[in-house]
């Protein structure tokens, strides 16, 4: 059954790539330790690291810009960026390392930038080791990048494969019971396929508000959403 999206959902938004896409890893920490030689004249990282010419870099992932306490004095530009809500994640750090002045006008970090994306990825992998580990503090920053891809209208006419949906459904049934019981968490069985697909795309685009569902939906490709819709539509 071809799926037609209603006008409620815009098609032009950027969304995550299919789950089949390979992970975009953040690089090799060992090589990154060598790349860090560019930085170590001004920045310390690791046990006992202190502020020097630049602030220490422990715990930088997930940290708002210009927020190291103690007595470090940031440039006005970086202070302003921090106040405006700049937080150091993989993407912001990557942009900053590529060309500091592009991201933060007036930064005092006198560094021309790392042109090579691999070098940036490697040094970020190295720095990542000195920030909270999600295994210990699950709310810590991601260590992998979310791949993104443009959504084309054709993929919305997909006929779902229920066999593939059955495999994918194991991610759903940790919470949603396959017998249709809806205590505390809604039932997702025996929905019309179109309703199911519309709901999932609404989560995927964060039009529907639930954070768990947004996260799950953003990892599903359009084929995968169609497959799940087909599987759950006919489940006994």
């Amino acid at each position: 059954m071809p799926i037609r999206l209603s006008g409620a959902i815009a098609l032009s938004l950027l969304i995550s790539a299919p789950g089949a896409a390979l992970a975009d890893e953040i690089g090799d920490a060992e090589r990154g330790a060598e790349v860090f030689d560019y930085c170590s004249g001004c920045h310390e990282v690791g046990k006992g690291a202190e502020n020097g010419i630049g602030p220490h870099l422990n715990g930088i992932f997930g940290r708002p810009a210009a927020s190291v306490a103690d007595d470090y004095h940031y440039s006005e530009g970086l202070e302003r960026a921090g106040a405006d809500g700049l937080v150091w994640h993989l993407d912001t750090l990557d942009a900053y390392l590529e060309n500091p002045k592009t991201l933060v006008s007036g930064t005092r970090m006198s560094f021309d930038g790392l042109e090579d994306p691999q070098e940036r990825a490697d040094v970020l992998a190295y720095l990542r080791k000195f920030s909270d580990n999600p295994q210990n503090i699950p709310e810590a920053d991601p260590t992998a990048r979310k791949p993104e891809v443009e959504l084309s209208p054709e993929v919305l006419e997909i006929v779902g494969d229920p066999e593939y949906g059955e495999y994918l459904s194991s991610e759903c049934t940790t919470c949603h019971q396959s017998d249709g019981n809806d205590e505390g968490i809604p039932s997702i069985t025996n929905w019309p396929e179109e309703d199911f697909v519309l709901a999932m795309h609404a989560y995927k685009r964060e039009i529907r508000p639930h954070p768990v569902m947004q996260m799950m939906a953003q990892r599903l490709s359009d084929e995968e959403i169609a497959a799940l819709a087909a599987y759950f539509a006919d489940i006994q």
Partner: protein
Amino acid sequence: MTMNRRAFIGTGVAASAALSAPMLNAQGKPRVVVIGGGAGGATAARYIAKDSKGAIDVTLVEPTRSYYTCFFSNLYIGGFRKLGSIAHSYGTLASEFGINVIHDWATGIDREARTVTLAGGTVLPYDRLILSPGIDFVEGAVPGWDTTAQNAMPHAYKAGSQTELLKAQVEAMPEGGLFAMVAPPNPYRCPPGPYERVSMVAHLLKEINPTAKILVADPKPKFSKMALFQEGWRNHYAGMIEWLGPDFGGGNVKVDPAAMTVDIDGTVENVDVCNVIPAQKAGRICDLAGITEGNWAPVVPHTMQSRVDENIHVLGDSTDQGDMPKSGFSANSQAKVAAMAVRGALTGSKVFPAKFSNTCWSLINTDDGVKVGASYEATDEKISKVDGFISQTGEDAALRERTYEESLGWYAGITEDMFG
């Protein structure tokens, strides 16, 4: 759809190539032995049996007949659940899914011969072995405490009689008494668990012993959902809970179970109840199998295979896998990836790329639920976090109530997913 699937397989993970040759078994059906009947093991056994439709012979080895989930055991302490409501049996796995459930301890693994020996003397041959034994404690982690002291100072970090004992001790505290917790260093089972427990003990004490106090000695400067718990403790249990991080000596603790004292950085406190949650390591059978490095068993993220032995898959708390927290949800998620890989290896069934996810709900007070979660993917190096979310401080009561109700739904869902 075939076009989509072809594209899908074409970009599939490297691991699927290694799994593409099905193993033939001269004796007939391939055999899978699963050790440990918790969130990892029960799920893996059920999914392999269910999806192979009888083509694989599945044996589940679990010492206890009644399994108490560690998740939600804090809610029993708080009075929100009956102990019986977190107990589960293996009847459906045996009757409906044809799993051979053996209640015994696994005492040895011969990786060359591919056999498991049980305490009762039975020897089980396997083609693939799945180890999901949960945690054990690091000896000497808290000076003065070992497992012989677990009646005086319970850990209650394996659910069941220990949980019951801890709750009984809290209920028996003298008026205005002191409950102490020695929190564990990273990494350990259920990162928010100790702090949910503090919340649940506080909830119980507020009802039955409101002048009692709670003291937490913690070697970690930060813990999971810290801002959410500290906000909740201020709002619901003002003046009751004192948390001492490493800056205040929380990492320098000795206990004396005979005298019922706790020494925090040289200051000795008399305590009425002491919950010691020691540093943790992989369940002992992983050590016996020789697949641990340091305290944990390293695994290949795409399949959850041991990095030491490709015929063994390891799940849940025992693994060193990367970013996923040690939780029941994680173990359940990893189990499905392993089940798929095992079926692919033994029967040639299709293997899709691994996907992992986790959500941890915690209860702070009546109808005050919070959650943290993330999605993960397999890279060659580790399981990497891709995206995540966490409840926010200052959320309104209706959302928190909804989050709690959601956790009840999740409990019903995951236990059905594990036990059928």
